């Protein structure tokens, strides 16, 4: 049971940071959605807001760790140019582009993933800031709360697209 250094970073990027963000989404959404006066007591609100703030900050941190490790550690291995005569299996981007049957995985999958992933940390940070700044006041401002929920869902959708393509790409052309 061994992992190479590259495999370790790939797992940390996708399976720990990225998957952590995606898995935490349901809890965060439930917390934000139920911030309504009729659904929580004052005591419940105090307790919920504290957990929600901590959870949203943790999610924003996970989203940043995911894109930063992806962009600056894993992605350079993915896009490295092979020297002439090298085994293309060691160079995922070149490997995918070398065959028409796999080229779209790079041209569509990776090209979309590498850009859309950045939407998640930006919007997750916005949501965490608003939860910290307004706290229980979010129950009183319906429009702000709904906008925050919409941003949170958009952040999740962006992360999901990146995560799904990341999983497929690592299946078709793994980083070893």
């Amino acid at each position, binding site marked *: 049971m061994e992992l190479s250094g590259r495999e370790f970073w790939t797992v940390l990027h996708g399976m720990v940071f990225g998957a952590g963000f995606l898995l935490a989404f349901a809890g965060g959404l439930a917390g934000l959605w139920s911030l309504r006066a009729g659904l929580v007591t004052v005591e419940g609100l105090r307790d919920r807001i504290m957990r929600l703030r901590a959870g949203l900050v943790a999610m924003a941190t996970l989203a940043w760790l995911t894109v930063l490790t992806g962009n600056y550690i894993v992605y350079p291995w993915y896009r490295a140019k092979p020297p002439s005569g090298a085994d293309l299996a060691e160079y995922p981007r070149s490997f995918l582009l070398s065959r028409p049957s796999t080229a779209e995985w790079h041209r569509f999958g990776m090209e979309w993933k590498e850009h859309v992933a950045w*939407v998640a940390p930006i919007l997750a940070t916005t949501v965490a800031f608003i939860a910290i700044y307004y706290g229980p006041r979010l129950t009183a401002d319906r429009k702000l709360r709904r906008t*925050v929920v919409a941003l949170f869902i958009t952040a999740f959708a962006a992360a999901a697209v990146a995560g799904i393509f990341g999983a497929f790409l690592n299946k078709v052309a793994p980083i070893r």
Partner: protein
Amino acid sequence: MPDRSGPNPGRSVRGPSPEPEVVEAQLVDDLRRVRAEERSLEDKLLQIQSQELSLSHKPNGAGAAAVLAGGIGVFTIGFLTTLAAASVGVRNFLDWYSPAGPLSGKTTLGGIVWLVAWVSAHYLLRNKEVSFSRVTKALVVLLAVGLLLMFPPVFELFE
């Protein structure tokens, strides 16, 4: 004892039943009234809860600033993605960290624009009450255009 003899004991006398459209309109009216009452009660409950939590009012400007800046950040990354696809010069300019290529410049510049927009908007709007409907409309446009511009079939049109 009341006399319950007769062909239909206990049955009330009713007039002709109203048209379905009339019944539906009445039900819709009732539903609206109930929802309005529900909101009014929720507002009263909010006031009580706010007093219990000793909450002071915070203008929505800071929230609007964060939301708008988020939209601007996403739009900037999308815009730079398409611009880099369209121009070799821009692509080379955005190559700030060679192992990661132009993606490093697109995302770093996008992040800088996002933070500068956020800080500026925060200081401009933090003490103001703004129309959140307008903010939401601007956000939807920024997000939609930004996401579209980072979608490969769209930015490849400019290559």
